[in-house]
């Protein structure tokens, strides 16, 4: 059964292709025919359009000429009524202008008065401001002067104190240095004098030793020894 079906498939396709081809050709003929018809219709419509347009132009020219005539009539009529209107309008405008001028004049007057009052007030304010500024300036100057004077006085005082202190310290330092130098000189002088004294005594002792060794007799020497022994007895040195 399926084999039979498979055998008919190309046949089916062939029939379908033929039908499609026939349909296509039929459609093509239809379209071609409708196109020709539409071209004819278009041409007819164009002709009709041209005719309508021609008629329209003709009617428009008629209307225009009619309108021109009507316009000339209206303009002539309106010129008469316009003169009246102009007079009224001018009158109204003049009145309005006068009213406006009056109002404006009043407003200007009022504004001027207000402005003058404000100017006077502002002038007064400026005067006050100037006065205050002047007062503040003088006060500031005075305060600054006082402050400067005070600073100068303080600086002068401090400088004076510093100078006195420095002078005192310098004097003390110099005095100490001088004292130290004097002490050093005195010490050195005393040492040297003591050394000289020692040398003098040593020289004297040496001289006496040499001289007395020659000049003192044995008896004299013994007498001095006896004297020493007696002195030791008096002092109870030898018991």
């Amino acid at each position: 059964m399926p084999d039979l079906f498979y055998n008919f498939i190309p046949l089916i396709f062939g029939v379908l292709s033929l039908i499609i081809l026939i349909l296509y050709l039929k459609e093509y003929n239809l379209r071609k025919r409708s196109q020709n018809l539409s071209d004819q219709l278009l041409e007819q419509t164009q002709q009709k359009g041209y005719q309508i347009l021609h008629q329209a132009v003709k009617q428009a020219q008629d209307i225009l000429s009619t309108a021109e005539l009507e316009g000339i009539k209206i303009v002539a009529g309106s010129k008469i009524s316009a003169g009246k209107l102009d007079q009224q309008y001018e009158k109204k405008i003049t009145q309005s202008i006068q009213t406006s001028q009056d109002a404006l004049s009043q407003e200007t007057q009022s504004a001027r008065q207000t402005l003058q009052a404000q100017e006077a007030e502002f002038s007064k304010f400026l005067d006050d401001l100037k006065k205050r500024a002047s007062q503040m300036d003088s006060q500031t100057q005075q305060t600054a002067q006082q402050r400067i004077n005070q600073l100068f006085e303080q600086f002068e005082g401090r400088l004076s104190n510093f100078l006195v202190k420095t002078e005192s310290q310098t004097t003390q330092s110099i005095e100490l240095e001088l004292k130290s130098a004097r002490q050093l000189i005195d010490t050195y002088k005393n040492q040297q004098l003591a050394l000289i004294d020692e040398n003098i005594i040593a020289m004297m002792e040496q001289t006496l030793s040499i001289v007395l060794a020659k000049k003192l007799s044995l008896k004299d020497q013994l007498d001095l020894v006896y004297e020493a022994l007696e002195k030791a007895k008096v002092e109870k040195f030898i018991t």
Partner: protein
Amino acid sequence: MNDQIFKIILTNTYTLAQLKKRVRVLKDYLISQLFNESRPSLNEKDLAYLRSLEPSFYQQFNKDNLYPIFADLEKRISQFIPLYLYLPFETDDQVTSQIGLFIQKTYGKLILFDVKYDPALIAGCSISWQGIYRDYSLRKKIEDRKQEILSILKGFLK
């Protein structure tokens, strides 16, 4: 008996060195005499001292008591504390005798002394007794009056 012997030896003896020498010379002499040993070489001074002693003095010694007596004498000598006398001049026996006699006369008792030479003393003497030193010399007097002397000298210089 030893006291008597020691007293005789100390007669006319003034210095510790002199005492020691005399005891040694006497001992050597007595040993040579009692034990027939060779006589020690003695100088004139030693011989004079030996001759100055009485014969009875020598009779107190014999072979038995010689060494004990001298041992005792040496012990007594070692217990002596001498007086040191510093002198600026050199001395001999005569000078030391004179000084010894003066000390005995002044202090009324026997004080043995030792002499030491110190030329820096200039004149006078210094004494050391039982570890204490005192200067009685001219040097000490100059030291004591140094300022006075210097002021006099400076017065001269001005």
